[in-house]
């Protein structure tokens, strides 16, 4: 960077005991002195009596100046209000621009030597007529800043006009500048916050235009008439002529600037930025012209504010649209949070992120560029532990207190539930930025003499900033918060729907029960009547009936008895899922023996050659239901093997990794394996009804019983070569082997 040849050493800084560290304590509001481009009177606000005056004036002249003022006007000044222009006055042939204001204690009247300057004629009118319409047409912030810098340059004739903005940390960034040849460019440069101490920033709010006409000026002290008045106690914070800090003057000289003026840009009562003007040589601006500059600052502030509001509203609207789309998709689906990553583009666009993750307790779904699962879970844990609904950071590593996480320099997170760990996180990658400072900001350190000196160099100094992502905008944070509200709404609605469904299911179950009851009672009765009366007819009239009539009646009876059995079987089937299991250990060997005896009472089972393994397992089951299942399998085997000579049925144990059970094998008609899945369905039959009797519910019952015990059924068959049906029930959780081990441990 080109260094101004007239850059001077910081003279004042060396002669003053005030170091930069003391800047914050410096009495800049009450310096007890003024700049010499005018003079000043301190009056008693009640009687307008002279209390003090600047040393560049004598007492008689001061008193004659008071004679020119309207005491009524002075008395009507309101304390702490902005200075009021009193117009131009001529004293001893010299013309002055006069202004006055009230402090809490005093009335201060300032006389500035009137000047003619560039663009002096009706500057306010010019602003309104041409500058304001241009501002209104400008689209974005940088354009507004550029227009303001150009207008300020034109209005004041300063060699360099900068518009800069303060960031959250108080550092200034130059957005626009307008330069004369020979002036260094600061566009895009950053000024460290330390350049402007806090109490100076306060003054920027109070006094919107500050002019330093000549950095080499000699301060004019105030002279008090009354010995009890300490001139250092006179509040000059609103005074146009107020003398400024010697450190600041040194800073100006270091910068090669002998005249400066700054106009505050105040938005919503906060110092948003400054319009800063510099000149290589001393320069003065008349009071009316400075008023116009102040007005320019206000117009710019209003435009920026309206621009911010508009663009914030526009982006909020766009984000709300995205939120709505996400929520609509979610409520169309099963509403599980997982669905969010099914639409990654919207989810990522919502926050301008590169990656996102949905965390539901221990489950995790991600999309885009994200850290590792473990890292996300650890981060989710930490965020959940903060107890906030929305968390945002653009420098995560600094806050998370862990090593930087890849893809997650910045994170934005919402917590959906207070009870569960349900979070959605968005990630932004690291953006390595370079910041060009107007001089190395780190130079603001104590020098060898223990004092802090103002910066001597304004040469560009480039800093590389790492570990940061782009910041999350207020609109983005607002949008995810809105998404969070909507998600909570959906979750609540789903919970209600589930509850409704449960109620409905309960009602349907009750109806089904009533239906079963009706079937069991009202359908069995007519079946019984048909069977009974047919028997009576055959008993009473059998001898006189034809062979054919007897055969028909036998069919009627058989059909009605079968219907009765069907009703019983159906009822049993429906009851199977309703009654509670009473599980205990069942000796299957004993059960099978009993069933063999029971089945053998019917003549067709008496031929069966039973081969029963001696080591059938003990099973954990409801004894009654297990018996129904085993009886069904054995009766089935008897039924389908009765055409064999001899029918042979084998019952053997099954021991598998998932449990124990038994298998019943016969040498009967078998079945085609392609129908194996149909075997266990209700009313599934693979044989013509007249060939093998049965209700078609037996195997469905077996399956339902086994499954209610948490087990599985299976079947193998070969047409003409028999079938194998078996089931396996899970072993009880308390494995005896495990018990003994535990016992050892306890012992």
């Amino acid at each position, binding site marked *: 960077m080109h260094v101004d040849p007239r850059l001077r050493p910081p003279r004042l800084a060396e002669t003053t005991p005030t170091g930069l560290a003391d800047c914050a304590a410096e009495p800049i509001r009450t310096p007890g002195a003024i700049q010499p481009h005018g003079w000043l009177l301190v009056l008693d606000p009640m009687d307008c009596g002279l209390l003090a005056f600047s040393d560049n004036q004598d007492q008689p002249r001061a008193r004659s100046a008071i004679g020119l003022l309207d005491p009524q006007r002075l008395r009507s000044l309101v304390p702490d209000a902005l200075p009021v222009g009193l117009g131009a006055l001529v004293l001893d042939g010299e013309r002055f621009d006069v202004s006055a204001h009230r402090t809490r204690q005093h009335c201060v009247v300032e006389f500035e030597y009137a000047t003619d300057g560039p663009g002096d004629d009706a500057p306010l009118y010019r602003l309104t007529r041409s500058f304001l319409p241009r501002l209104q047409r400008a689209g974005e912030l940088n354009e507004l800043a550029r227009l303001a810098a150009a207008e300020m340059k034109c209005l004041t004739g300063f060699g360099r006009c900068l518009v800069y903005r303060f960031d959250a940390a108080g550092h200034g960034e130059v957005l626009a500048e307008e330069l004369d040849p020979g002036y260094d460019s600061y566009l895009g440069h950053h000024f460290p916050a330390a350049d402007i101490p806090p109490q100076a920033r306060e003054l920027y709010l109070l006094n919107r235009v500050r002019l330093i006409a000549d950095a080499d000026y000699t301060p004019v002290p105030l002279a008090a008439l009354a010995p009890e008045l300490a001139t250092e106690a006179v509040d000059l914070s609103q005074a146009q002529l107020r003398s400024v800090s010697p450190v600041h003057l040194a800073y100006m000289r270091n910068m090669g600037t002998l005249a400066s003026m700054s106009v505050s840009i105040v938005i919503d009562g906060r110092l948003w930025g400054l319009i800063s003007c510099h000149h290589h040589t001393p320069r003065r601006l008349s009071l009316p012209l400075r008023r116009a500059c102040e007005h320019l600052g206000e117009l710019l502030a209003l435009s920026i504010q309206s621009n911010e509001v508009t663009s914030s509203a526009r982006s909020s609207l766009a984000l709300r649209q995205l939120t709505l789309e996400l929520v609509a998709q979610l409520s169309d689906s099963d509403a599980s949070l997982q669905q969010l990553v099914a639409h990654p583009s919207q989810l990522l666009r919502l926050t301008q992120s590169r990656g996102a993750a949905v965390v539901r307790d221990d489950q995790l779904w991600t999309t885009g560029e994200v850290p590792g699962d473990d890292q996300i879970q650890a981060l989710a844990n930490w965020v959940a532990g903060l107890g906030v609904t929305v968390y945002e950071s653009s420098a995560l590593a600094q806050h998370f207190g862990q090593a930087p996480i890849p893809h997650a320099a910045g994170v934005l997170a919402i917590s959906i539930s207070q009870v569960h760990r349900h979070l959605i996180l968005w990630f932004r990658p690291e953006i390595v930025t370079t910041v060009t400072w107007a001089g190395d900001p780190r130079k603001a350190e104590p020098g060898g003499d223990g004092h802090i000196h103002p910066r001597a160099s304004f040469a560009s100094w480039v800093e590389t900033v790492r570990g940061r992502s782009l910041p999350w905008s207020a609109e983005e944070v607002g949008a995810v918060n809105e998404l969070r509200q909507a998600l909570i709404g959906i979750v609540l609605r789903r919970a209600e729907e589930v509850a409704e469904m449960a109620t409905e299911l309960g009602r349907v179950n009750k109806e089904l029960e009533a239906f079963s009851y009706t079937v*069991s009672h*009202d359908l*069995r009765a007519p079946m*019984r*009547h048909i*069977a009974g009366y047919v028997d009576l007819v055959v008993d009473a009239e059998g001898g006189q009936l034809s062979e054919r009539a007897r055969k028909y009646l036998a069919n009627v009876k058989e059909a009605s008895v079968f219907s*009765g059995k069907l009703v019983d079987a159906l009822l049993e089937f429906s009851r199977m899922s309703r009654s509670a299991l009473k599980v205990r250990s069942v000796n299957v060997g004993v059960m099978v023996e009993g069933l063999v005896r029971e089945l053998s009472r019917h003549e067709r089972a008496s031929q069966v050659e039973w081969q029963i393994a001696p080591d059938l397992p003990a099973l954990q089951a409801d004894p009654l239901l297990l018996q129904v299942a085993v009886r069904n399998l054995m009766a089935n085997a008897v039924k389908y093997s009765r055409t064999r000579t001899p029918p042979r049925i084998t019952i053997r144990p099954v021991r598998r990794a998932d449990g124990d059970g038994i298998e019943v094998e016969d040498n009967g008609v078998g079945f085609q394996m392609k129908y194996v899945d149909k075997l266990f369905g209700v009313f599934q039959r693979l044989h013509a009804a007249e060939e093998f009797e049965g209700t078609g519910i037996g195997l469905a019952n077996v399956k339902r019983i086994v499954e209610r015990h948490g087990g599985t059924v299976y079947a193998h068959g070969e047409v003409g070569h028999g079938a194998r049906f078996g089931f396996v029930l899970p072993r009880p959780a308390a494995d005896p082997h495990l018990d003994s081990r535990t016992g050892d441990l306890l012992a």
Partner: protein
Amino acid sequence: MLKPILLVEDDKRDLELTLIALERSQLANDVVVMRDGEQALDYLRREGPHADRAEGNPAVVLLDLKLPKVNGIEVLQAVRGDAALRAIPIVMLTSSQEEADVLRSYELGVNAYVVKPVAFDQFVSAIADLGIFWAVLNEPPPGSLKVSRRGEP
């Protein structure tokens, strides 16, 4: 003299079949038929149209579960709540296999619960068993013995 059997049945076909079954079981007891629960209670309490019947309780009540006006469960409840009637053996005779009915009946102290078999020959033998047990073997203490029953919990 043998005590009568009280049969409470509203369905006329069930009534006829039951009477035939009782007849075939060759019991000597008279069978008194009531067609609903209200009549049955009047008979047992010797009230209303039965105010002047001879004293004494029946040997056994064969009680259908589903009855008009006062149903079987309510009759059972009334009998068990009446000191004069409490000892009468009551057999529920019904089509229903519903667990809830069975449980309720046993809670109320039924002596037996018989689901009517569909096949007539089985029905006849069930009735015969019942008759022989309750009518011939005199009166055992209520609830101490149970006969062939199905649908027990």
